[in-house]
């Protein structure tokens, strides 16, 4: 048996060419492969990280962005613990497609899945989507937000490590909830508010947690 405490599945989605494969390769292999071909179906990488003294195995699923692979990639949403939705900050259409992606996530993924919005390619000079716009969008849709550059290795490690930290907190809360016989429904985003503010490394995440919790509750009441 391999030696790890938790296993988390992370699935990357987003339009073709936004840099999903590059993000994964940068994180798992420390490479930036120029001229990366389109992914066919899904690809799969594993990296074991250590967070808060725990060994965590991350199963990272890199999916193809093209429409014709959608029915393959969708089938991986349900078992995902975290979904990273990627767009290209220098390409407006990739940002415009985000609502479609969210609809798809809503349709196929677990309702408690951790969602992260990532604006990639911050190394580019021809930015089309200002950071603030991305941030707003994430806030509206209960997602964490981070801008990265796979090319310059900016925020890539941080992205995955913070996801791992959040997922550990979730898993611990879930265990606790089961022991205390409290309602299991509280595992969702509701717990992030307190957890995230306690944890200094999640500063970027915590900025929108309190609001997102409220909105999350509202949306639940509405449905």
């Amino acid at each position, binding site marked *: 048996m391999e030696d790890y405490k938790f296993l988390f599945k992370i699935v990357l989605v987003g339009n073709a060419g936004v840099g999903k494969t590059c993000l994964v390769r940068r994180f798992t292999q420390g490479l930036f492969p120029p001229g990366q071909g389109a992914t066919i179906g899904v*690809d*799969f990488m594993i990296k074991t990280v250590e967070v808060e003294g725990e060994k965590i195995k991350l199963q990272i699923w890199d999916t193809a962005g*093209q429409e014709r*692979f959608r*029915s393959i990639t969708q089938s991986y949403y349900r*078992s995902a613990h975290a979904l990273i939705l990627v767009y290209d900050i220098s390409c407006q259409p990739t940002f415009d497609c985000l609502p479609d992606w969210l609809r798809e996530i809503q*349709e196929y993924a677990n309702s408690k899945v951790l969602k992260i919005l990532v604006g990639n390619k911050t190394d580019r000079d021809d930015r089309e989507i200002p950071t603030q716009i991305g941030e707003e969008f994430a806030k509206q849709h209960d997602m964490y937000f981070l801008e990265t550059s796979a090319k310059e290795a900016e925020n890539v490690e941080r992205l995955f490590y913070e996801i791992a930290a959040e997922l550990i907190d979730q898993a611990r809360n879930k265990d606790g909830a089961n022991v205390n016989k409290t309602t299991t429904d509280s595992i969702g985003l509701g717990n992030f508010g307190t957890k995230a503010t306690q944890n200094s490394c999640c500063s970027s995440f915590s900025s929108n947690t309190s609001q997102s919790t409220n909105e999350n509750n509202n949306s639940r009441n509405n449905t």
Partner: protein
Amino acid sequence: MATTTTIDVSTPESIQTTLRKIAEEENDIDTNLENLLSKQSLIESKMGAICYFLGTLNTVVADTKKLSTQISHTANLAESVSAKVRSVDLARSRASECQQRVHDLIDLQLCSQGVLKAIEEEDYEKGSALIGRFLSIDQNVLQRTAGDVGSSGSVTSVSDAVRTLENATEKMRKLVVIRFDEAVNKDDLASVERFLKLFPLLGIHYDGIEKFGKYICTKLAIKSEKELRTSLDIAKSENRLPVAFADTLTTLLENFARVIEVNKPIIEAHYGSGYLIILAILLQNECDSEVKNVVLEFNKNRRINDLIQQIKEYNRATGGNMPSLSQYQKQSVNADKPQPKDIDPIIVELTIMHSRVELYFRFLRRKVKLDIDASNVEDVEKERQTQRLNSLLNNSGLSRQMQELLSNYLLLERHFMEESVNKAITLDTFEVGQQCSSMVDDVFYILRKCIRRSLTTQSVNGLCAVINNTASCLYNFINALKVPLKNGYPSGYTDLAYSAIQSAVQHGKLQSSDSEKARSNFINRLNNADMSTEFLETLWETIEQDIKNTFPTLSVTEQRIVDSCISELRTVRDTLKACVNFGMTQLRSSAVKPRLNPWIDQFLNYSHILSEEELADYEAGETFIQTLIVQLDGFLSQFKNVLTPRNFDAFVSILATDTTARLERAIKKTSFNRLGGLILDQEIRALSSYLTGVTSWSVRDKMTRLTQIATILNLEKVDELTEYWGPENENETPSWRLTPQEVRILLALRIDFRMDDIKRIKL
């Protein structure tokens, strides 16, 4: 020495002694001297010998010096000889080069003389062969030779010959192209092949293959168009209708594969290795457009786009999740969504089409890769050609078509699976005498069918997606199982599962009360969940085997993806097990506890302080334990046949745990004398042997505490305990489950034991 040097001359005795000593020393010295003198002659003779040999050594030194000069001399000689050999070699290779050039020049003359004649006589083979010979001569050397010969002033026609041949080559190339085109126009296959062979001789390999490729493509285009039309017509009237388009696609791809297969040896013979990729690229373009036509026809005739649209809308309406059963029943009225029965044949056809394309790609990759590997170029170039091949295969229109086919397949397959599973759950029927209802068999039959079908696509991605969908589907199935379990096992006066089912049989469903129905439903779901875990385990075992057979050579990454998807099914199994456990706890709280407690509490009504006569009376009459066993037996037998064996064992386990716990409580509230303890021991033995007999599973462990309690209460005297309690007994009897504190409390239950004795005992 000190004694001998300090001579004591004070007394005549000492003088005497000293004198004697001196005389002794003198004697010693004399013998030593004699010894030394006797060795003198030996040493002298040895010295003589040494002097003699010294003379000889001088000669050796002189000889050695001579030898070393001779050796170095020889070495010099050898070196100068080998230098000469080297220059001779060089000369010889130049001579042969020169000879080659002379041969070339002679051939050049012959070629230039022959070629014009050949062209005039329209003997293209001979002309091309001559030109081929000309082109095989190193053109640079030829230029230089022409210059050399020219500068020496002799009137040779080297440069003329070269010029003639160059002109002839041009002319010949044009001619061959023209003749080839003529042959193509006339559709004269023999001539086409005849001229095809001439292109490489004229040094225009690429043109030859390109022209040939185009020719074949036009031929194939006509052929496949005809085939598409006829197969569509024929298919309508014949029984291959359900797979008509798959057949057409198969024929089409077979045509292309045949072209490669037939022409590979021809091209390799006349052009050499490494040219097949050019033909493959040309053919692929044509193949892409023809496959596109077939797929278009397929999509049109089978209304694929409509179906996809309908399913997508339906999924959106249900929020992607499978609808709950009541929703499902309502929605089944509206016929907007495609029915599983209708899309089943289309799914089969899609899998066939996809697998054919996959096989075609494998064939093409293998053939072209072999050709590239056999080619006579550097590794870097081979690598570049291989990449060219990969990008040809991955970026071709056919590959995109294939991915779209797979996408459609997966969408339809998922719909088929979910709808069929829903249908199986809705149409669930329970037959008397069966432990599970029809849906368990049905659901797993459907899932297995879908996964098997996904294997026939020959696509790992497709297989994995279907396994993922299976897991999702099973979660919905589990929810369907769980609803009745959540509501709990209905308790009441007739809270026996057996009678519930019995009465349902006797009176028919209409007359059985709601709670009876609910009860049989509960038991049924519990069995279904248990049976499902077993079926699920079998399912992934067979899938793993099937995968090994279908994909014998998976890459490491592919294997990991597959494993990860299958492990998802394991998670589902664990959820199912949790579901069974949940049902068991429900059963325990509403069926076991309320019955069991009053039965066991009867124990308190029997006095365990008895005289001899009372003991005899007690044994003659109906004892507590006999009644209890009859009651338990009646209770268990009602569940024995309605529960699956695994569930029944779990049920007995629960019953045993609860019985022993409750009985222990009752014992602790009772007082005993010696005979009472004896009776208790008999009672516990009877219970233990009964429970052991009911189940295959070992119940002894559950009885250990009770047995130990009975042993303590059945003691003759307090001191006797030490015979049972103690480290030396641990090998014979099971280790004690009771704490020393508990033992003291139990001993105190015996009214005939004195507290002082109990306190004194060492534990």
